[in-house]
Structures are given as structure tokens and as C-alpha cells.
């Protein structure tokens, strides 16, 4: 059964594992022991649930997209509104969980990596809320492109450390965060932002994010008295997608993960890891990734900073092989169209990441019957993207 992974070695089928320097192994063992303890601890789970509710505002609603549905004239579209979380995306669910765990483990500091800054803001937020010191590693290029999020993190009291190595973007920030962690494992907790990294991170992040799917499953059933015919989510590292899909894996619902096709999967500029990548090791995990023939990791491209990651959570590689989830890709342009459409039909400006899922859902809805249903994970709000949109759309929304 799909829900039995990972195994004790942290493998989802052949994927996952712990491909890390010996210096990190102790920290992973410690984390695993803490997880085993606290994920079975009523008091910890209660705190986690309470903070999700009272700090982040969960449960997030399930919104029926009435006008969008009418316009497409096909399957009914429901949106799981992760954009309504505090700080604007599903990222906080996981950040709350890990930060509470770090506290329980007696750590005083957290370190995190960030690309566009969404996970960095989430990490800085929980650090402030729970009284932890926070360092966020961020590529120099990203720091320049995301000045607003950099300021938010600083305002929240975090230190943003510029990363000058490699391509100066997310993957290098991740390397640098791991390096820092290795040097400071005793008092520092590494707060990873997606279902990636060495075991037990992919499992832990999934278990903190499954609240998305758990809520959605109940809400959907209350509305429709059945399970959705299709569930769609975007895939960067894959945390919102796994969080959404996981509780449905034993149901009949089709699940579709949507990667970023950037300027097209036939160009070098995309981030379609499962569609175009090959097996390898990245950031401690055996999984699909974008690399050249020799095994050097490649810079991905997507208009959405959150999907711009050369690897993917190992559980997705597993779900692809097992065919339980289908993976497709959506281009920048298709995502922008979907973003505009949802804004104008429903008054919700989605994150560009989430717009990839929407674009795929809209395509499918048109081909489906009116009694069928699609559940889309709206992973975040688009406010963070307005700058990018202004540049891309030339200052004029249409």
C-alpha cells in the first residue's frame, strides 16, 4: 500500500535514503529519534494542531469556483485555499511543525534555505513566534530579485546570509545551509522547506503537510458526498502536492502533479524534473533530477521561483514509477493565462506556482463531465508575484 513508505532506511521504493556526509549522520539519527518520539506524543501533536489553528488560521477553506466552472462548462472545480495560511502559502504548516520539534529537541537555532523567500519567510516567522535564532541562506542573485522578502525576513528578526557559491540560487543556498548545519549540528536545527533532503526529512515534511489533504478530504466529502475524480497540485520540491495527495492515495481519485515546463520542455529552460530528468542524488536523496551527462546538476528555469528546483522529493519519484500519480508539465505562458483567468473569474490571485496546477486543472475540466469534480491545491497567494507579473505583462494587466 502506498502509505507504507518510506521503509526503515528512508527509502520510497528505490528512492530517498541518506546520501550525506558522515558529519551529518548523527544529526539525522537524532532527528529520527525525536520524530519517533514526538509524532506519537499527544502533547506535541496537540501543540502542532493548536498552532495550525490559532496562529496560521487553519482549517483553510475549500472554495467552489463557481464562475470558473461555468466558464469551462465541464468538471466542477474546487480550490483548497492554502493561500489563506498566515504568510500566504502552505509552507507555514511544515515550518510550524519543524520549529515546534526543534524546540522539543532543545535546539536554540534554526537554519533554512530559501529561493524566492517564501520558505525563508515561513522559517523566520516561526523562529520569531517560538523564540529561536534564525539564519536563512539565500543566493545572491535571489536576494537581489526578492528584495521584499529579504526585508520581511529581516523584519522578523532573521539573519539572511548571502550565498555567493555556484549559481547563487536555491540549490547553492541549500548546499550552504547544509554546510552550516554540519558545522553547528549541536545547537542548530535544519528546517527544510519541502519533501526533499535526506531521510527523515521527506517523510517528516509530508507528515506535517498532510493536513492539507486530511482537511480537504473531509471538506470535499461534506460538499459532494464522494471523493474528487481528480486532484491536481503543482510540484517544486513536492510538499504541497504530497500534502494534498497523501490522504487520498488509497482512494480512487486520480492524482496529477504539475511541474514547471518553463519556456517549454524541448528547450533547456524548464524545471520539469520527472518529465525530463534522470536518476541521481541531490541534497542527500536518491531521486530524479536535472543533470548533464557527467552528473553535474543543472540550473532549472521557471517563471515561478518556487518550482525552480532541479530535484524532486523522492516520494514523487516513487509515485511516478508506481503510476499512482501522473506527472505533467505546464509552461510559463500557460500558467500566466491560468493566473489571469482565476483572478478575473474568482477574485483570487494565485501564486504563479499554484497557477501551474490551475492551468492543468482547467485543461482537464473542459474534457470532463459536469457531474465530475476536480480538487486543486491553491498552494499560495500571488501577491508575492505581482512584481514579476508587472515585468512580464508589461505593467498592464488585461
Amino acid at each position, binding site marked *: 500500500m502506498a502509505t507504507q513508505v518510506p521503509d526503515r*532506511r528512508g527509502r520510497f521504493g528505490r528512492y530517498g*535514503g*541518506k*546520501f*550525506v*556526509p*558522515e*558529519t551529518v*549522520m*548523527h*544529526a539525522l*539519527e537524532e532527528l529520527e529519534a525525536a520524530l519517533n518520539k514526538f509524532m506519537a506524543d499527544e502533547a506535541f501533536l496537540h501543540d502542532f494542531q493548536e498552532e495550525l489553528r490559532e496562529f496560521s488560521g487553519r482549517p483553510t477553506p475549500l472554495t467552489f469556483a463557481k464562475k470558473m466552472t461555468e466558464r469551462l462548462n465541464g468538471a466542477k472545480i474546487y480550490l483548497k485555499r492554502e493561500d489563506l495560511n498566515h504568510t500566504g502559502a502552505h509552507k507555514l504548516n511544515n515550518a510550524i511543525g519543524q520549529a515546534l520539534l526543534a524546540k522539543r529537541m532543545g535546539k536554540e537555532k534554526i537554519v533554512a534555505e530559501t529561493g524566492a523567500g517564501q520558505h525563508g519567510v515561513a522559517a523566520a516567522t516561526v523562529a520569531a513566534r517560538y523564540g529561536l535564532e534564525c539564519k536563512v541562506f539565500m543566493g545572491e542573485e535571489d536576494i537581489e530579485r526578492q528584495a521584499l522578502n529579504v526585508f520581511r525576513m529581516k523584519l522578523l528578526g532573521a539573519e539572511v546570509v548571502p550565498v555567493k*557559491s*555556484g549559481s547563487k540560487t536555491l*540549490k*547553492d543556498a541549500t*548546499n550552504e545551509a*547544509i*554546510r552550516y548545519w*554540519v*558545522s*553547528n*549540528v*549541536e545547537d542548530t536545527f535544519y528546517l527544510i522547506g519541502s519533501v526533499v533532503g535526506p531521510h527523515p526529512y521527506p517523510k517528516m515534511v509530508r507528515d506535517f503537510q498532510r493536513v492539507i489533504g486530511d482537511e480537504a478530504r473531509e471538506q470535499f466529502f461534506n460538499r459532494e458526498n464522494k471523493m474528487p475524480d481528480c486532484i491536481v497540485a503543482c510540484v517544486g520540491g513536492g510538499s504541497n502536492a504530497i500534502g494534498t495527495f497523501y490522504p487520498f492515495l488509497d482512494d480512487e481519485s486520480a492524482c496529477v502533479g504539475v511541474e514547471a515546463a518553463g519556456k517549454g520542455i524541448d528547450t533547456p529552460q524548464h524545471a520539469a524534473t520527472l518529465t525530463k530528468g*534522470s*536518476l*541521481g*542524488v*541531490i*541534497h*542527500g536523496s536518491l531521486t530524479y*533530477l536535472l*543533470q548533464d*551527462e*557527467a*552528473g*553535474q*546538476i543543472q540550473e532549472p528555469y521557471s517563471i515561478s521561483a518556487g518550482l525552480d528546483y532541479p530535484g524532486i522529493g523522492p516520494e514523487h519519484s516513487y509515485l511516478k514509477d508506481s503510476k499512482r500519480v501522473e506527472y505533467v508539465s505546464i509552461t510559463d505562458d500557460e500558467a500566466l493565462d491560468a493566473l489571469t483567468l482565476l483572478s478575473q473569474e474568482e477574485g483570487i490571485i494565485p501564486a504563479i506556482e499554484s497557477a501551474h496546477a490551475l492551468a492543468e486543472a482547467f485543461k482537464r475540466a473542459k474534457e470532463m463531465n459536469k457531474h465530475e469534480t476536480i480538487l486543486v491545491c491553491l498552494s499560495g497567494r500571488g501577491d508575492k508575484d505581482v512584481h514579476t507579473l508587472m515585468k512580464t505583462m508589461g505593467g498592464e494587466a488585461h
Partner: protein
Amino acid sequence: MKRFKKYVEGRNDLFIPFIMSGDPNEQATIELAVELQDRGANVIELGIPYSDPLADGPVIQEAASRSLKNNTTLESSIKSVKKMREKGLKIPVIIFTYYNLLLQLGEDYFFALARENEVDGILVPDLPYEEGEHLRALCEKEGLALISLVAPTTSEERLQQIAGNASGFLYCVSSLGVTGVRSEFHASVFAFLEKVKKYSSAPVAVGFGVSKAEQVEALKESCDGVIVGSALIKRVASHEADLQDPKTREKAIKQIGDFAAALTAPYRTEKLST
């Protein structure tokens, strides 16, 4: 393993330099390996440049960047070992490579190449003991050393297991963190080394931060050798221009050799005095 037998086993004054393949070019790496042998090296650790070297500090990261500009690959690096042999390199060479490069080359092909090019061992910094079972079996079959690492945080139980299965030599990480120069070692390193030596089935060498003769002096009673990476690579970086120019290369290599010799002087002093 026969080169390990001859140049490594039973010794307690091992000098194991780490150099980056192709930094700043293949020829320089080949000549440097031979020079280091002449200056007392017992093993050459040949680093393969990688885009995402997460166990390494900035000095080695930059060396990798320089080397990648020359399109250095795992395959080209293994092939250059043969050229080192042709230039007179006799000591063991171990390939230091991140796991992804090995995966992409293919393990079978790797072993074929290693055999053909007279490689003696392999070290995969992001392949911890638990994940190394398969590779370990293959190495054993092929007679290659799979170099394992232990760190101060390695639990007693794992330490026992890893050290007990060590082949070639056991790489002892001096302190937490990534590769790079450290000015001092924490006192606890000695207790750690004592424990490691107790369990180890192979000579114990200390790496991560060794950069001064004083450190070698301080460590020499507690372990069987030192691994020197960033300190050497810094010299390569500062001689980059000279190493690129065939006319000045030899002199630059000698100067790097001088540094290596000075660093490991405590071993020779001992040799002389005994």
C-alpha cells in the same frame, strides 16, 4: 590493494594530499601528483570536481569551479591516473567523488576504468556506511579500497562498525563542518582518535583543517597520518597563472612541493631522529 600494502600499511607517518583533478589543468594535476610523491606523499587523493560539493568548504568549491571550466569529468580524471603512472607515480591513488558522478558514470564502467587506469581506491563523501553496502561489495571484489569516514559525532556503535570494516585507511574528520583550513583543533580530538584507533582495522588518518606543521607535530602521536586538502589547494590557487603557463609550471609545482614538505617536516624529523 597491493600499493596500499606497500606504501600505507603499518606506517604511522602517512601524508595524504588531496588535489583537485584538472585544477587548473590536467597536466598540472599530473605533475603535482608526482611532485607530492617525491615530497613524501603516501597516497594521492584525487578530487573530482562537482557542481554541488556539499561536504566542502569554499577553497575546494572554487577549485572545483576552476576545474569544471576545463570540462573535467570523473572519466577523464580516472584516465589521467594512467598518465600519472606513466610519469612515475607509484603510490596508491584514490578517487574522491560525490556519489552522483559515480552513479551517472555507472558502477561497472567505473570499476573497468579503475582497473585499466591503475586506481587503488575510492572515497564517496556523501555515501555514508549504511548506503555503501553495494559499493563496498563491489570494491572488495575488485580489490579496491573503499575509504570510510568517521566524525566526532559518529555514535560509538557506528564507529565500531565503520572502523572495524575500514580498508585502505580510515578517514577521521577532525571536527564538525566542511573541508577547509582550521587554525586549531579542539582538545577533544585526541580522545576521539584514541577511540578510533582502538576499533580501526586500518591506519587512521586525520583530515579537515590540517594546514600547519605545528598541527602535524601535535597529531603525530595520536594517529597514523594526515590528509591535507584546502591548505594545498590554496597554494594551487595562488599559483594558478604560473600553473597554466607551461614555461613556469615546473617552478610553481616545486613551490607547492616545498610547502608540502615543510608541512610534513615533523614526520621526517622523527624519521631522522629515530
